[in-house]
């Protein structure tokens, strides 16, 4: 197990290193003169040079790269060109929206998908199983933003139960914050569930045909008991991988949902900063998101090692 963890850690660090170089080169190298980009058309060469010099942008690229990485490692993500705010502060403020949104969306997706997918697997070939398959198929086809708009129309406009958009700070009113998150989480979670149901269904179906499930029954379990006690643990193995992959999908979903519901989350901040040509903010935030995604994948690999003894000893 120790070797397994070590290997995964090395891969984790390697992937982050490659990602950081790629982001840096894409934004700094391919983007041309950063200072000119920031200042926009009509800036005098003197102004551009002055800005470049004050931010150290006139130094060689690799010096700038190591400078950036070194600062990131010590927790300094840089500052905004325009407002001079620290990127770290900007990001932390936004995480109080984005993390609850993404996490609750994922959890809701799982809470719906696991029982429904298992039920669908047990009822393959029956009308109820077919209806479930159809509904989840439709759910997969529905774009997240459309689901968000529909939900907002129904619960926000027609019924007036929940706000159609906007954000109340946790510090102002926790209840208000939760209320503004309900519809976004619902749209994200339902779409997530639709995708996951199909994976849960096929994972459970696969397990149901395994010999060890028959053995579990042969030593005294009922059909249901065997499925719950032996089947789900085994079915969770492929699902862990799928959920890990869905994390990236989830972040894409938050970009759209935060826009639809005008939530001041991390994804929307990114979009705004891309539009405002805030090179440093974009670069550091993208890096953070990448570290998060790769980190989740590391976690998935480690979890896989815990759940499946075969992975530990063979890889």
């Amino acid at each position, binding site marked *: 197990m120790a070797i397994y963890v070590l290997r995964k850690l090395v891969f984790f660090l390697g992937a982050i290193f490659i990602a950081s170089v790629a982001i840096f080169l894409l934004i700094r190298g391919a983007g041309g003169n950063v200072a000119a980009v920031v200042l926009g058309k009509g800036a005098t060469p003197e102004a551009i040079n002055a800005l470049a010099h004050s931010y150290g942008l006139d130094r060689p690229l690799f010096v700038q790269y190591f400078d950036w990485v070194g600062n990131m490692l010590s927790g300094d993500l840089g500052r905004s060109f325009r407002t001079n705010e620290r990127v770290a502060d900007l990001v932390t403020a936004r995480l109080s929206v984005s993390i609850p949104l993404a996490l609750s969306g994922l959890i809701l997706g799982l809470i719906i998908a696991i029982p429904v997918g298992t039920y669908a697997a047990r009822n393959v070939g029956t009308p109820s199983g077919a209806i479930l398959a159809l509904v989840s198929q439709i759910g997969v086809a529905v774009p997240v933003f459309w689901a968000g708009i529909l939900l907002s129309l129904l619960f926000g406009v027609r019924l007036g139960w929940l706000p159609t958009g906007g954000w109340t700070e946790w510090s102002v009113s926790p209840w208000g914050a939760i209320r503004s998150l309900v519809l976004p989480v619902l749209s994200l979670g339902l779409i997530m569930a639709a995708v996951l149901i199909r994976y849960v269904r096929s994972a459970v179906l696969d397990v149901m045909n*395994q*010999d*060890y499930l*028959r*053995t*579990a*029954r*042969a*030593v*005294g*379990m*009922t*059909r249901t*008991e065997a499925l719950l006690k*032996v089947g789900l*643990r*085994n079915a969770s*193995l492929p699902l862990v991988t799928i959920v890990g992959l869905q994390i990236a999908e989830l972040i894409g979903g938050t970009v759209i949902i935060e826009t639809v519901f005008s939530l001041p989350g991390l994804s929307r901040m990114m979009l705004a900063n891309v539009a405002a040509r805030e090179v440093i903010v974009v670069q550091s935030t993208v890096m953070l998101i990448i570290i998060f995604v790769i980190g989740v994948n590391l976690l998935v690999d480690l979890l896989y090692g815990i*759940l*499946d*003894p*075969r992975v530990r*000893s063979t890889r």
Partner: protein
Amino acid sequence: MTQTNPGRANALEVRNLVVHNSALTAVRGLDFTLPAGGRMGLVGESGSGKTLTALSLMGLLPMGWQANGSVLHDGVDLVTQSDKALSSRRGRTISMVFQDPLSSLDPVRRIGFQVSSVIRRHTQASQQEADRQTLELFRQMSLPRPEQLMRAYPHEISGGQRQRIMIAMALACYPQLIIADEPTTALDVTVQKQVLRLLNNAVQERGCALMMITHDLPIIAAMCDMVAVMYAGRIVEIGPVAEVFRTPRHHYTKGLLDSQPTMDNIALDGSSRLASIPGMVPPLQSLPKGCAFHPRCAAATEKCRTTIPTLEGDQRRAACWHPLGAEAAADAEVKAQ
């Protein structure tokens, strides 16, 4: 081999057992009795319905399959029991050893846990007591380093050891009947004999009945006192092993016996040839009329093509219109006259 104890009820009384799904009938009316502590071999080619018969006795038929008829075991009719009622018997009064021990064990649970949880399920034993009994079972199965084995996972041990674990699991609660479905087919030849010997001894010590499903006739000869030969979902011949194998009455039984390789007929230089039964097992959806074996049988007559023979006789029964022994007997009579 094993004496039947008249004081105990039969381990199994099967009457007119039929196993079918919506389209096919795979087992078409079985009748046999397995006395307490008795040992019966069930032989036949693939597709003859052996495994479905075994699974129907356990109430473990695959989705869509259904059993009819009656199977008396321990005072109840297994066919009419609910899954819940059957589950309290499975592993306790009746258990089963499957063909492939690797795929039959839960890959993500420790072996010790898998065996001890069977004991805990069916008895009042504490975890400690169940672990102790599990260790004892491992020792009986001659498994090396039983303490370490408790904490091992199925993929970490050999195929022979896995099958011995499966047998230990099946024996854990002293069942009245063990069904072993091709227990050595998936194993290396070198360990087959050892696993069979351990199974044989364990069954003998406990006095539990054994139903051995295989197409390996020498195994039946060594381990069983009764044999039932199945063909296309029916028993075509049944009786004491020694008699059936020495003087088979059904042409199919004789064909099976003749196609067993021995040191004499296995020479590969062409000087001696291993006999085989011509043709193939008919598919279930298009069984021939009359005796299902008639297209492959040299002795088939018009009667065989139209009318299904029934199992005739007492101890020795064969479902054939032209049984082998009878011919010889008739010939002898003619000569005598």
